C-alpha cells in the first residue's frame, strides 16, 4: 500500500495505545515527505526505507531515537504549525510503552507502567529484608573478613547469583521478542562489519552528536555535549563496576584471595573510578532530564528517574561503605547498598535499563538495513 497511514488496530494489543501509534504514523508520514532531518541521526534514514509505518516499525524507529531533540528544534512543522510535528515526544511515549510490550514475562509490564513505585517499593523491601536477615543472624559467629562478617560470602553469592541468572533469562526472552519484530535475520546471519558499525554507534553514542558533532538539543536551540558526556560517565562507570566485580570473582575463586582488597588493587581501582563515574554521570543525567524542554518531555511513570536514581544510590552507598568501616552504621549501610543493588537488578530485567538493549538492537537493525540496501545497489 502506497503512503497510507496504516491501520494499526490489528496489531496493537492494548486498545488505548492505538492513538499513540496512529499519531506516530501520521508524524512519520510527514517526515518521510520532508526529510530535512535525515542528517541528524539514524531514525530518518531508516524511515526513508519505508512507505508505511506499522506498530513494529514504529517500535523500531522509536527505540532508534536517542531523544536528542535536533529534529524538533529544526522542524518547520513543529507547533504552532498545524502539522504539530514532534518526533522526540511521541517516540519517547512509544519507547516507554514498548518496554512494557516486550517485557518478559508479559505480566511484568505493570513494573514498567508503574516504574517509580516499583523501584521505591523494591528498594525498601529488599533493604528491610536484608536488615532483618542480618539482625536475626547476628548472633551466629561470622566467618570471613570485612563485609562478609555482616553477610556471608555464600549468602551474597546466593542472592546475587539468583538475581543475575534471573536477569539473564529475562534479557534472553525480551531481547528475542524485540529482535523478531525488526528486519534482523538470525544472529549468525549478520556480517561482522554490521556488528562492528553498530558497536561503534553504541560505544560512542554517535546518535547524540546531532550529525555535525556538536551535540544534542534536548534543552533548546543550542547544541550541547553535556548529555553525551554524562551518559558516557554513567555507561562506562557502570562497565567499570562490572569489571571490578568480575575481577573480584576471579580473585576469590581463581586466586583464593577473598575481599576486602587494598585501595590499589584492581577490583578497588575499577570499582572506585567506576563508582565515581556513575555518581557524577547519573547526577548529570538527572540534571539533563530536568532541563529537557517541556515540549519533548514524555510522562514515563518515573521510569527514567528511577533508573538514574538507582544508579546514583548504588554508587553513593557503595562508595560510602569503605568510609563507614569503623562506624556503627556499617551494617545498616551495607544492607541499604545491597538493597539498592537488588532493586537495580530488578530494573535490569523490568526497567529503564532495557533501553540499552533495545536501542542496541535497533542500531544493529539500522546498520543491517544500510548494509542490505548498499549491497543491493552495488550488485543489482
Amino acid at each position, binding site marked *: 500500500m502506497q503512503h497510507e497511514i496504516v491501520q494499526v488496530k490489528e496489531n496493537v494489543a492494548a486498545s488505548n495505545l492505538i492513538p499513540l501509534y496512529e499519531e506516530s504514523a501520521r508524524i512519520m508520514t510527514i517526515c518521510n515527505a520532508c526529510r530535512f532531518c535525515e542528517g541528524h541521526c539514524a531514525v530518518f534514514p531508516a524511515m*526513508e526505507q519505508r512507505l508505511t509505518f506499522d506498530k513494529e516499525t514504529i517500535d523500531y524507529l522509536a527505540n532508534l531515537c536517542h531523544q536528542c531533540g535536533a529534529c524538533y528544534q529544526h522542524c518547520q512543522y513543529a507547533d504552532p504549525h498545524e502539522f504539530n510535528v514532534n518526533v522526540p515526544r511521541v517516540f519517547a511515549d512509544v519507547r516507554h510503552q514498548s518496554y512494557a510490550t516486550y517485557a518478559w514475562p508479559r505480566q511484568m509490564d505493570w513494573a514498567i507502567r508503574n516504574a517509580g513505585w516499583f523501584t521505591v517499593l523494591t528498594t525498601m523491601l529488599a533493604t528491610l529484608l536484608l536488615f532483618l536477615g542480618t539482625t536475626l543472624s547476628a548472633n551466629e559467629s561470622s566467618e570471613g573478613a570485612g563485609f562478609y562478617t555482616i553477610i556471608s560470602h555464600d549468602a551474597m553469592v546466593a542472592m546475587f547469583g539468583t538475581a543475575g541468572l534471573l536477569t539473564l533469562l529475562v534479557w534472553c526472552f525480551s531481547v528475542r521478542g524485540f529482535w523478531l519484530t525488526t528486519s534482523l535475520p538470525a544472529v549468525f546471519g549478520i556480517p561482522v562489519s554490521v556488528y562492528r558499525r553498530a558497536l561503534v554507534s553504541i560505544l560512542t553514542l554517535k546518535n547524540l552528536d546531532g550529525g555535525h558533532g556538536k551535540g544534542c538539543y534536548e534543552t533548546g536551540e543550542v547544541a550541547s555535549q553535556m548529555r553525551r558526556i554524562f551518559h558516557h560517565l554513567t555507561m562506562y562507570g557502570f562497565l567499570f563496576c562490572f569489571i571490578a566485580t568480575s575481577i573480584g570473582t576471579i580473585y576469590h575463586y581463581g586466586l583464593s584471595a577473598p575481599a576486602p582488597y587494598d585501595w590499589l588493587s584492581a577490583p578497588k581501582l575499577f570499582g572506585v573510578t567506576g563508582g565515581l563515574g556513575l555518581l557524577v554521570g547519573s547526577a548529570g543525567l538527572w540534571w539533563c532530564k530536568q532541563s529537557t524542554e517541556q515540549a519533548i518531555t514524555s510522562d514515563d511513570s518515573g521510569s527514567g528517574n528511577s533508573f538514574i536514581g538507582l544508579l546514583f544510590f548504588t554508587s553513593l552507598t557503595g562508595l560510602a561503605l569503605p568510609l563507614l568501616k569503623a562506624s556503627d552504621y556499617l551494617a545498616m549501610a551495607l544492607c541499604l547498598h545491597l538493597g539498592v543493588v537488588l532493586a537495580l537488578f530488578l530494573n535490569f530485567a523490568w526497567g529503564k535499563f532495557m533501553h540499552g538493549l533495545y536501542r542496541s538492537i535497533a542500531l544493529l537493525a539500522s546498520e543491517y538495513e544500510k548494509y542490505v540496501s548498499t549491497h543491493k545497489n552495488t550488485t543489482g
Partner: protein
Amino acid sequence: MKQDFDVLVIGAGHAGLTAAICAAESGASVCVLEVSPKNVRGGNSKHTRNLRPMHETALYPLEDSYGFDEYFDDLLRVTDGETNRELASLTLQESASSMQWLKDHGVAFQPPLGGTLHLGRTNAFFLGGGKAVMNALFQCSEKLGIRVVYEAQEIQIDIESGVFRRVTYIQEDQSEELTAASLVVAAGGFEANLEWLSEAWGHAAHNFLVRGTPYNRGDILRQLLAADAVQIGDARQCHAVAIDGRAPKFDGGICSRIDCVPLGIVVNNQAARFYDEGEDFWPKRYAIWGRLVAAQPDQVAYSIIDSRSTGLFMPTVFPPVEASSLHELAEKLGLPQENLIKTVAEFNRSVVDGEFNHQALDTCHTDGLMIEKTHWARKLDKPPFRAYMLRPGITFTYLGVEVDANARVKFAASKGTGNIFAAGEIMAGNVLGQGYLAGIGMTIGSVFGRIAGREAAKNAT
C-alpha cells in the same frame, strides 16, 4: 543628528540576518524588525533546504566542480536572459564563499537528501534544513548584540527623495519610532498577499496555496515603489508549482509536493487532460505545472496513477484518494465519470509500448492524441487507481526593487547615493527575472545579504 542605530534591517529571514550580522561585524549597531512572532520566525528561509554555490573543485558536501561558465549558462537558460548580467556575475562569483560564511556562523552541511542525488554536484544541503540555518544565525545575532524586534506591526518607512529618515511601527499596541543611518530591506516578496496577486491573476489567485510564511505581504515593497524606487519584474511573474490541494493555506513547505505527475495523467475538473505530463524532468516540469493548474477551471487538477507507480516517487504527506475502478475514482473525486473513463480509455489506446525508465527521457509515449504524452506513458489499467488533487502552490514572487552592485536600491530621482539597501527575495528579480534554479534564492540572499550589510555599515560611518 544622533541616530538610534547605525543600521536598521527589516525582515529576519536568511538575507536580513546575514545583512545584520555582516553590519554588526563591521562595527555597526544593528536593529532588526520582524513582523512575525518569535515562534514562527525565519520567514520563508525556514522552509529552504540548500543553496547553490559556485565551486571549481569538490568542496564538502559538493562533488566535482560547478564553475562560473556552467553556472552562468544555467542561469541564462532558466531565465531566458531575463537577468542583469553584471549582478548575475557578481552573485555567482560571490557565491563561492557563501558556504564558508555560513559554516563560520554555525551552519552545518550534509550530502544531498534522499531522493535528491542529482543535486549532489550543484547544491549544498543544510543539515537540519532552513530552520537550523535560521536558528544558527539568530544565535549569532544574539552574540553580536543585535536587537531583534518581533511582531513589529504596521511598519512605515519614511523616505524623502530616496533617502531613509525613520521608521515607525506598532508593538504591543504602542507606537514606536526609530532612526538609523542606513536601512536594509529584506522583507521578502508578496506571495502571501492574495489581494495583490489577484491584481495580476484575477480571482484565480484566491485558489492559490502559499507554500511559505503568511507574513510575506509585500508591505515594504509597496512603500518603496510608492517612494519611486525603480521596479524590476511584474506582478504576474511568480514561481508556482503544483502541490497537494489539501496542503495548508500557508507554510505547507516542502512536504506538500506531489512528484507523480510524470508517472500518470493529469486531468482538470472536466476529467480532460490539458498538457503533456511527460514533457520533461524536475525542475523544468516542477516550474511549469503551477501555472498550468492555475489556468484550469477553479485552479484545480488531479494527478492520476495506477499501482504500477507505487514507490517510484517521493512519499506524500496526505494519502491518495484510492479506488478499485475508474468509475469509483471519478465518484470519489467528484469528476464526470464518463469523461474520466473516456479520457483514460483514449489515453490507454494511444500508448505505444516502449522501455519504461522514469530516470531518463524514455521511449514510452502516446501516438494519436490531441495532447500527447511524450515520455513515461504507460497504460492506466492496474488497479487500485490513485489520485492527488493539485493546486497551484506559490513559492515566491519576482517583482522587486532594482539595486546596484552595492545592493543599493535605485530611486528614480537619486544619483546612487541613497542609504537604502536591499537583499533577498525583494531584489532577487535583478538576478532571476523568471524561471527557477534550485538553490538560487538562498544564494542571492547570501550574496546580497553580505553586500547589503557591509555597505549599510560603511554608509553609516
